């Protein structure tokens, strides 16, 4: 049974099409990164998955349960971290953690105490006295401590400092080791690159690309930089390869697909240095958003 399954999931708010026919399938144990800029439809997707908002068309299931029709059974196996920490200002951190633990059930209190230590949270403070990052920690600790089968997180590290960001990544890694599924919506590419097995890229309500990082890289351009002993030679045009000069004696090749033809073309020239680099997730991401990327060639 899949952890998250969505079919043709669509949401329209008045005139705005926020999510357009999302098909998504996430297996138990996967850590899935859900990427997109502000307003792409990430939070809408999560609200539909959790049954907070009602799909205009299509359906979504968490472990085979439709969260719109049956939210209570669906949510028993899920813990959620919202993008904004909307909590109760007059309650302290400890009271909030206890309240959320009693609502969810199954909280590992020993692990919760450990998380409080690791995230360095003062639970005696009232929510209203906490900074945004610290309120975010309250949500994160509450969610992680449930040891839920599925963690749904909407930009969970917004407001966290770099040390806490590292702690967060460790906790996600630990969750994966325990076999928990993680759905991580983010626009922090380094975070997704660090913790996710599989990535989906959302653009204007549509999933435009999806796959493992290796898949995405394979289908994107590699960058090959070559330095020559002396002026750079003139090479015959190669199909699918863009060339631009780097200084007087260097060339940069943007290669879609295999780099073989470039290596062949270089044979016989006085190459002194050659570097080849896979695209970063940032480059893949920007590829879809620089205005040249063609939407809809998903292959997940």
């Amino acid at each position: 049974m899949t952890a998250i399954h969505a079919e043709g999931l669509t949401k329209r708010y008045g005139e705005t099409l926020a999510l357009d026919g999302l098909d998504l399938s996430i297996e138990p144990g996967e850590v899935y990164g859900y990427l997109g800029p502000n307003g792409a439809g990430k939070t809408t997707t999560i609200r539909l998955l959790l049954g907070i908002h009602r799909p205009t068309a299509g359906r979504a299931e968490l472990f085979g349960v439709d969260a719109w029709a049956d939210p209570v059974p669906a949510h028993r196996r899920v813990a959620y971290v919202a993008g904004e920490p909307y909590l109760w200002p007059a309650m302290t951190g400890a009271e909030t953690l206890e309240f959320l633990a009693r609502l969810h059930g199954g909280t590992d209190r020993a692990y919760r105490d450990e998380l409080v230590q690791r995230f360095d949270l003062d639970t005696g403070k009232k929510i209203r006295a906490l900074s945004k990052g610290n309120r975010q920690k309250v949500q994160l600790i509450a969610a992680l401590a449930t040891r839920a089968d599925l963690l749904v997180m909407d930009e969970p590290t917004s407001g966290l400092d770099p040390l806490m960001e590292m702690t967060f990544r460790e906790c996600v890694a630990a969750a994966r080791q325990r076999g928990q599924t993680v759905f991580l919506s983010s626009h922090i590419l380094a975070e997704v690159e660090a913790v996710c097995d599989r990535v989906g890229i959302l653009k204007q309500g549509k999933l435009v690309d999806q796959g493992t990082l290796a898949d995405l890289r394979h289908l994107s351009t590699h960058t090959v930089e070559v330095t020559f002993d002396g002026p750079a030679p003139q090479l015959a045009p190669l199909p699918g390869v863009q060339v631009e000069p780097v200084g007087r004696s260097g060339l940069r090749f943007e290669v879609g697909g295999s780099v073989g033809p470039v290596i062949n073309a270089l044979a016989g020239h006085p190459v002194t240095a050659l570097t080849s680099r896979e695209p970063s997730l940032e480059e893949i991401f920007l590829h879809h958003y620089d205005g040249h990327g063609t939407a809809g060639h998903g292959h997940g």
Partner: protein
Amino acid sequence: MGTVSQQAQTAPRAKDRPARGPAAALTARAAKNSRVLTIAFTYLFVVYSFIQPYAYRRGYATLASRRAFAASFEGNKGLRLLYGLPHDVATVAGYTAWRVGGVLAIAAAAFGLLVAVGALRGEEDAGRTELTLAGIVSRRTAYWSAMAAAGGGALILWLAEFAGFLAARLPAAGAAYLALATVSVIPVTAGAGAVVSQIAPTRRMALEIGGGAVGLLFLLRVVADTVDSAGWLRWATPLGWAEELRPLAGPQPAVLLLPAAASVALLWLAARLGATRDIGSGLIALRGSAAPRLRLLSSPAAQALRSQRDSLTAWAGSGAVLAFILGAVSGSVTPADVPHRLDQQFAKLGTGSIVTPAGYLALIFLFVILTISVFACAQVGAARREEAGQQLETLLAQPVGRAGWLAGRLLIAAGATVVISLLTGLLAWAGAASGGAHVPLGQMIEAGANCLPVAALFLGIAALAYAVVPRASAAVSYGILTVTFLWQAVGALLGAPGWLVGVTPFAHVGLVPAEPFRAGAAAVMAAIGLAAALAALAVFRRRDLLGD
């Protein structure tokens, strides 16, 4: 301050220019933020100021009937308590000044407080003041711009009341003066609101302290108007000043100096207090830490009860105190000086006989029913705030059902309504007993319980409005409540046919203890309320959660 008021005055002029100054932009923003409140009060002012003189003219067409009416009213302390001290109720103008001025002055007091706290502490609570002051705007400019918007609101209400009177064919000069007397309260309570906005760290606390202060001002007027030796207390409250202006009955315009001086002093004090404190906090510091209290955390309903506890206690406490005072006053109502025929005429107002302690208490309990219905609507409003603040999303992402959540909130509201109603009945009895009036305890408990069917009806209506139109739910529920209540008060006087008067639930309330409890009507109202609540649960189950 001089330069600042200049800034405020330049606001409208700057509006015409392509680039508006920050003061004008802030004033316009504050006016827009309070527009729902202003529209609601404008509606109340225009309708009430039109309908009362119009209905009086129709209901008491002859001079003789007015004289007789006046005779019955001038000595009645119970009515003074609600409407203030009458000066000349034998004329349309005098009646209007008493009946409209007294009630709308209370509304004006509430408006001043709400608009000032909303524009100052409300904005600060939401974090927007910090954003504003991070720009090229001084604290002084921000403060006086917000207050200029409140002044604009007062001007709109003055126009609304004036227009209502003109439509009811009152003389223009008198109408303008009466409207001025009414809205003279606004700058004073707005000044008080500005001061509590500096003191209290949250909007809610500012409204609670300010509401308490306005309640006290009302209580002072009540005592001044009902206790013969305490008339001087009228000079201690802006609601008393509005009376002492004597609109349409021997005007004393010099009294206007009092609200003018008081509002300048309060506004100046608030500006001084606000000049040096930290933005985002009040002079009262909130505790940032506390030892955990883990009771009432087992369910969303328990947690709601926990967070509402102070507010529920305040409602119950102030209800009990007011009921006791009103009960005590009921002893001063005597039937001796009111002819039977007049009493019957007053019954046209829909309030039954008012010349006995029981009759007077029945009239008072009509207002208690109204207040408890407001309470029921306010409870649904608290549920809506949890959704608007998105804490509800946090809750419903847990294994918590929507219907269960809303049902829990409605049950808390219903339970609190029962407690407050019965407590009010009990304390009114105690007050009456202490004031020497003999009304049986059982009857007063029954009077308290008699609030419940109407409250259940409005709880159901408010819940349904919340489920169907969450963002407009407060406007819808309070709007229906206001319209049906006013319709009860004036529908019969306007000569509307019986079936049309009967559309308001208030027409079907047996005014216990003066009249018998109407079980059939009560059952119908409770059933409609329950049906509406069930419909609300079904609708709420199927809609998106909506933030602000």
